[in-house]
């Protein structure tokens, strides 16, 4: 998937975590750079800009959040954050600051690699790339604004399409409730997230085999939604 060789920058103060991450990424064909704190992480990202950053939050000389906001001033490199469970507020903050996704510790390496693939997939921009996004039996054509399930054309309301659109543009990546609300309803309705719940329910009835056990349009509890890749 990476040609020429991509580099990943791992910022984590735990030597053991860096070590197994290095092993995993080298198996996947990445070149690996390591950093142990905020300062060396930022330095390394500046000197040899990586193609991907894996960032642990609790660093000895500061908060990982700082790395995200600093990096985002000049770089759009994908960032995946290692977080812990039950801190959904923090996850939302990270995503809104510009992190691309997160993995909850402890995690199996398969899960992390799946996230990495999703964030490294080129952004779906209508007109420039293949405009068709596939998730299971669902296909969304971002150019013609059409969606099909098993080649059957779906009839979607305007809000349903807007929600599907932002998820498809970010396929495989989590999109926060607020990002979806802003995209589909504008900034004046940010608090009315029940609109979103109802639109998602309608969408699932159209695209899922069993709308109560979704396999395509997945919920990230307390954070947002993700279109399965």
């Amino acid at each position, binding site marked *: 998937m990476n040609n020429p060789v991509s580099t990943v920058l791992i910022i984590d103060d*735990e030597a*053991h*975590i860096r*070590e*197994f*991450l290095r*092993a*995993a990424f080298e*198996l996947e064909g990445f070149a690996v750079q390591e950093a142990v704190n905020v300062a060396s992480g930022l330095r390394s990202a500046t000197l040899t800009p990586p193609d991907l950053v894996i960032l642990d939050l*609790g660093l000895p000389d500061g908060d990982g959040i700082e790395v995200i906001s600093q990096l985002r001033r000049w770089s759009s490199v994908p960032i995946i954050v*290692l977080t*812990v*469970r*039950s801190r*959904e*507020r923090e996850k939302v903050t990270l995503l809104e600051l510009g992190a691309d996704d997160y993995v909850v*510790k*402890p*995690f*199996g*390496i*398969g899960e992390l690699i799946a996230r990495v693939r999703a964030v490294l997939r080129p952004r779906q921009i209508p007109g420039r790339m293949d405009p068709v996004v596939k998730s299971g039996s669902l296909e969304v054509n971002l150019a013609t604004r059409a969606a099909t399930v098993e080649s059957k054309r779906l009839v979607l*309301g*305007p*809000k*349903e399409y807007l929600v599907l659109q932002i998820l498809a543009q970010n396929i495989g990546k989590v999109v926060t*409730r607020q990002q979806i609300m802003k995209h589909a*309803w504008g900034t004046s*309705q940010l608090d*009315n*997230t*029940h*609109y979103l*719940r*109802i*639109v*998602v*329910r309608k969408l699932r*009835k159209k695209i899922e085999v069993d*709308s*109560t*056990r*979704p396999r395509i349009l997945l*919920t990230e*509890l*307390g954070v947002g939604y993700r279109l399965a890749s």
Partner: protein
Amino acid sequence: MIRSLGIANIRAAMASPELIRDFIISILISLALVAAVTIGLAVLDRFFTLRHVSIIYLIPVVIAAAKLGVVPALIAAIGGLGASAFFFYPPIYSFLVNDPEQLIDLPLFIFVALVINQLATNLRRQAAIARQHEIEVQGLYEFSRRLAAAHTASDIQTAIRDHLVAIIGQRTIFFETSKHGRVGPSLSAQDAVPESVRRETEAFVSGGKEIGGGIVVDGGQGHLWLVRPVSEKTADFGVLAIDLGRQSKEAGEALRQRVNAIMADTAATLERLDLGQAINAARIRSETEALRDALIGSVSHQLRTPLVSILGAATVISQAPANRDNGRLQSLANILGDEVERLNSDVQDLLDATVISSKGVQPNYEWMEAADIVNAAIERRQRLLAEHKVVVDLPDDLPLIYVDPILLAQALGQVIDNAVKYSPHKSSIDIAARANGVSVVLSVKDEGIGLVGEEQTRLWERFYRGERHASKVTGSGLGLWIAQAFVTANDGEMEAASAGADRGTTIFIRLPASEKPAEDDE
């Protein structure tokens, strides 16, 4: 009762219709008294020959002077003399008097009217002072009783504030203080406090101002505020800000001295009760809690970090190209994964238990699909549930619920963990959600050991573990306690039902389904 009217009051009386009415009524009463005396004398006059009738007319004068005021008393005096001259002294039915000696009565009556009125006024004033004093003593008594019964700093602050309000009748705000120089209005945080007042308060606490009898501050819009520490010796007891209203600087100064007098008593009482120590103890308690939270936070970090490396390294080994097809290695890696997940959830239980018992659960509510919560709880336990027949039944038209999805998924997860732990392999676990009137009910039904006797009621207790299986099944006794705390925090209820030993258990989580939120009209 009709107000007493002195000369000084007359001008004021003219200003208010109510006072004018009172004034006229009191004059009418004194004239009525004179009339009554006249009628009585006229009756007596039939039987006896009355010589010095005018002296009897002192009765209405004295009554009017004592009860009605100086003007009605003078009117009673003139009226009485007039009546005696008219009805009783020759020539009768004329105001003319033959005997000049009787003219002496006039100054005598006026003198009596003035003296009696003066005495009565003094007496009344002293009675009022005594009554006021009694109210203050009673207030102070009530205040010390409340202080003695106070258990928390906020009880004490309420007592101080109520006491001041009762005595001086002005808006009073109590500022809590801490030795880090932090100041916060307590109790009445919604009250607006002018910036200048807040600055002065902070100056007292940070030591920038000498502790003393307090100062009068202009709070803007003509309002004067009195700012003073509760005690004149230390700012530890808190600082009071009293809104004196629109008053002159002098009136403010007078009120300040009055408050000082009250607070001198109060401060003495506080010191006697060693309030300083009580408030400090409360402060230390909250610092201890902060320390405990920090400790548990760091311990759980310490416990979790190795778990990350263990699971990460194990999965890297099992998924390395050379090992990918090695079934035995895969299953060993899965065992590692399961154990890591179990340890991790134990750490999470400890963290949750600390949160519940220290600061309480603070839900982040949002509109949720019940199915999303059920799916999340199941998703996390896929391998755990692999040994059971899991049947999930979620209707697709459930009302949305307004809950904290994370807390609820954790609560439901605890219930599912229990169902797995206490039921045989290959048995069924039915997980369902139903709309039931104004609630949504989640249920987890197993075919396990069931509940007997005291288990029925005690299963919700912290650290309770049923004796029948405590030795065979591991656990901390925290699971259902945490689940119930989380569900309760979401305004929900939990319930357990069982037909008896080895006949399975069903746990219900009942959540209020708030009115259906309005749909967006696309």
